[in-house]
């Protein structure tokens, strides 16, 4: 979507997916898009950073190495607090999810870039991966006992009501996990674009141009808030992943 009818750029034009290398496989459109390009850049950046920073493996960390160690410790503590020591086998998963979402969110804050996590299909894939692992691991380790997750400790007559509620609440987890991240990124970027658009409209409105620095200042403040939201949402995604994994590792009774 380019310029709208009134010549103003649409605030959702920034989310347009463009095909860079057209490709069709098995009847599906598998083109290499700008979304895929940014994901590749994110993975490349993360791998390069972690490999470069940990190359020395010195006892007294260098500056880069201490950044990587702080990141590691931060995620490891989150996993230990929310899943427990047995959950540390899921640390690679949570660390990968956290740092991928974090870098994608932060890359989206660069003006003119593309935000991978502002597309529901990306966040839904991540959320389904998490819930899939919870179900597969829970059933594999606990067997039918895993279904006790849906049976809370309440008097028997209440179970008629509680079991469907628990099932619905479990099924809505991937939905809320993916929509939370996607909606935060989408709404934040649209708000930024709309307030930035006010600067242009005010400058074009003659004498009103003298108040155009106001929306500009607001845009700067919003950018700061959005960086905070980008980091927080990555953290929330990791914490909720840990909370859901807790069910798979410990079962209903803990």
């Amino acid at each position: 979507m380019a310029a709208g009818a009134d010549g103003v750029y649409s605030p959702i034009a920034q989310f347009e997916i463009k095909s860079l290398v057209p490709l069709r496989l098995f009847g599906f459109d598998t083109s290499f898009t700008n979304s895929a390009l940014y994901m590749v850049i994110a993975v490349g950046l993360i791998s390069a950073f972690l490999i470069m920073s940990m190359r020395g493996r010195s006892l007294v960390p260098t500056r880069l190495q201490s950044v990587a160690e702080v990141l590691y410790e931060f995620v490891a503590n989150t996993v230990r607090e929310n899943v427990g020591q047995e959950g540390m086998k899921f640390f690679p998963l949570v660390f990968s999810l956290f740092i991928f979402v974090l870098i994608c969110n932060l890359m989206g804050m660069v003006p003119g870039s593309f935000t991978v996590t502002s597309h529901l299909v990306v966040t839904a894939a991540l959320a389904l991966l998490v819930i899939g692992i919870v179900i597969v691991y829970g059933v594999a380790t606990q067997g039918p006992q895993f279904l006790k997750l849906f049976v809370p400790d309440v008097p028997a007559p209440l179970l008629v009501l509680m079991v469907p509620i628990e099932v619905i609440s479990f099924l809505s987890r991937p939905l809320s996990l993916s929509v939370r991240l996607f909606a935060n990124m989408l709404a934040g970027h649209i708000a930024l674009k709309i307030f930035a658009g006010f600067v242009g409209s005010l400058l074009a409105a003659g004498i009103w141009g003298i108040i155009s620095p106001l929306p500009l200042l607001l845009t700067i403040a919003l950018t700061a808030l959005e960086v905070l939201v980008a980091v927080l949402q990555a953290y929330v995604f990791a914490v909720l992943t840990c909370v859901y994994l807790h069910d798979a590792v410990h079962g209903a009774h803990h």
Partner: protein
Amino acid sequence: MDPVAAKYIGAGLACLGMAGAGIGLGHLFGQFLSGALRNPSAADGQRGTLLLGFALTEALGIFSLLVALLLLFVV
């Protein structure tokens, strides 16, 4: 009713949902402050929980904003 007008009215109504998120955020930070002022030494340890609650609460307001944006740009 004109469908376009209905669309804009619906988007405006959807934004009312953000009032709930506003109440929630007020509760969240108000309760945190009242707790933190009673026991300032324990407040630092709860900052992570506070931010987690902030993100979870704020997301609900964003959901209603999302409905409004969907009405404006997608429907």
